[in-house]
């Protein structure tokens, strides 16, 4: 959905003041992020309920998860948030090439995260662990799976932004889509930062 929001900041059909457009786009994205948090909120609520009910099961089964891979992925995503933030600052100062580099690194981080996750899932399936194994793994696959879909959406948005930047659409004067797209990417990171300890680090 980010893409549509971003495109709209381009529409000058009604000659709305660019400052108003900027504040509308940011406000719109913040509202959208709020709905995303509520979407995950249902899963967090289910997590809280079932962890309280089956504390021992959660503790036993979380040992099946690969903490090292999870930790690597956490570092990758936090690093990608940094590169995204550097990219936003870069274009605000008009440094288009630096933004291109930063977007590329951020996208690569996102892909690396996905590859890691692919091996993690594959490993689980080899051990005959699937979403129907238990409530814990149902939650694990639902939460990380839904998050993964958001990572892919984020990669798609960043790729569109990268192409637009290569075409020279953004400058120090006009960079709303970069900022708004960056907000979305930070949310994707933020959700993972909650998922990692909740799923991998149960004690």
């Amino acid at each position, binding site marked *: 959905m980010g893409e549509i929001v971003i495109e709209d900041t381009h529409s000058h059909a*009604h000659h709305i003041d660019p400052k108003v457009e900027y504040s509308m786009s940011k406000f719109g994205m913040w509202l959208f992020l709020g709905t995303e948090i509520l979407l995950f909120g249902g899963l967090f609520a289910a997590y809280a309920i079932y962890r309280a009910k089956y504390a021992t099961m959660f503790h036993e089964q979380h040992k099946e998860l690969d903490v090292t891979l999870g930790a690597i992925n956490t570092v990758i995503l936090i690093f990608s948030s940094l590169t995204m933030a550097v990219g936003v600052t870069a274009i605000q100062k008009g440094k288009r090439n630096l933004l291109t580099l930063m977007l590329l690194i951020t996208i690569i981080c996102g892909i690396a995260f996905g590859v890691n996750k692919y091996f993690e899932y594959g490993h689980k399936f080899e051990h005959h662990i699937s979403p129907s194994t238990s409530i814990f793994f149902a939650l694990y696959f639902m939460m990380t799976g839904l998050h993964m879909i958001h990572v892919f959406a984020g990669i798609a948005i960043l790729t569109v932004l990268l192409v637009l930047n290569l075409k020279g659409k953004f400058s120090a004067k006009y960079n709303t889509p970069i900022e708004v797209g960056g907000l979305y990417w930070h949310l994707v990171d933020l959700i993972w930062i909650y998922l990692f300890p909740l799923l991998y680090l149960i004690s």
Partner: protein
Amino acid sequence: MANHTIAAPLYVPYLDKKGILSWLLSTDHKRIGIMYLISISTFFLIAGISALLMRLELIAPGKTIVDAHQYNVLFTFHGTVMVFFFIVPGLAASFGNFLIPLMIGAPDVAFPKLNLGSYWLYLLATILLLIALLKPADTGWTFYTPYSIKSGTDVILLTTGIFVMGFSSILTGLNFIVTIHKLRAPGMTWHRLNLFVWASYATAILQLLATPVVGITLLLLIMERVFGIGFFDPSKGGDPILFQNFFWFYSHPAVYIMIIPAFGVISEILPVFARKPIFGYKAMAYSLLAIALISFLVWAHHMFVSGISEVAATIFSFLTFLVAIPTAIKVFNWTATLYKGSIQLHSAMLYALSLVFLFTIGGLTGVFLGALAVDVHLHDTYFVVAHMHYVMIGGTVMGFFGGLHFWFPKMFGKMLNEKVAKVAWAFVFIGFNVTFFPQFILGTLGMPRRYADYPPQFHSLHELSTIGSWILGIGIFIMTVNLLRGLTNGEKAPDNPYNSVSLEWQVPSPPPHENFEKIPVVTDFPYVYGKKNSQED
């Protein structure tokens, strides 16, 4: 807008471009509003016909026209189409799109392309849902587990359709919130907004906060069917009550998504035809927000007999009573608006007055049902069916009809035949009450809802209800013909046929593409009737 170099800008009504593509690709909020209006009206009529068939089956005990399974299919169709195709997008998407920018003095909504995208998502969802419903589906519109997990019908397609519909609803809400915050004309302060705009704002907040939760719930239901994740399956350690909690956490606020815009509509109609400012404007605005807030705290009153703890049930029962306070403020203020007004019984006004009367019955019976002890007796009986229809038809649909008759001249630049409109209203009002009032009695006598059959002692009341449904059907038929004739043969409408002081009436009928030649500067409140600054008195 002000970009014309010529001194007298050419007036081109927004309806001028012809051709289906000029509509489907238009980002004009007015055209999108009209597309929603046509879509929801069509689905309203189709789902209404399925209701007539259900009533026909119930005219006598035993099988009349359909068997029990076909009856389940019919009520699933009726419920799902009415709820998700008509009443949830409903007045918010149709009137909201058309009116919000006009009322706040903006050229369009904040994100016009996103707005069109929402409509496409709505269309996509209706296609998915129609396929699923005609396959057919038999889970009812609530998709309660465990039946929705076991049902042999295509629940996955059905829930996917609703997921997409939810996305559309979220994006529309988001668009309206940003529009109302950022695009108000100079001088249009929060306390000068039309109450319909306040109502749209409260609705949009609900759409944004509640819809994602039903989204994840339906996603979990799909996963349950595909992978057997066991969240709602006790044999795997899950809990079917959790589904109900999740479902009603959305679906109770959704009830207010359905009704609040109608409150907004009649708050526009009453002052115009009473020639008086709305009574207690601020109380009216903030009571809408209060309803929205409280709506998140009452969901478990749908589950009093589902196996929740008595403590929880008691707390939810008392919280439910709180809803009565802001809604009573509204009914009180509407009535006070009428007090000593110069009342003119325009057809729109008749529908608005019907809403005040019928919603009061619907609302008060809601208090009965919110009372724990009473609900144990009335739960899942026709009393609930009657209560719900008094709120949804007596409230929302009356507001919808009222709004249609009220803004028709602005939307299409044509006048309606008032006499026919009033005849139609009389049929609708009488037919509605004959259909649904007996159902209150049936419910207290113990007639359970959702059954295709009943014991003979309920025969006469059921028969009466079915006859009422025909009167209601005739009324809606006359109204539909009148509206269509108005479109083709109606007299040309003046810009402001009711001498309203509200901003949307100050532009030509139908409005030009960019709404305002120049963004207006607002200096007063939209209900200044009877004061020295108003256009008359």
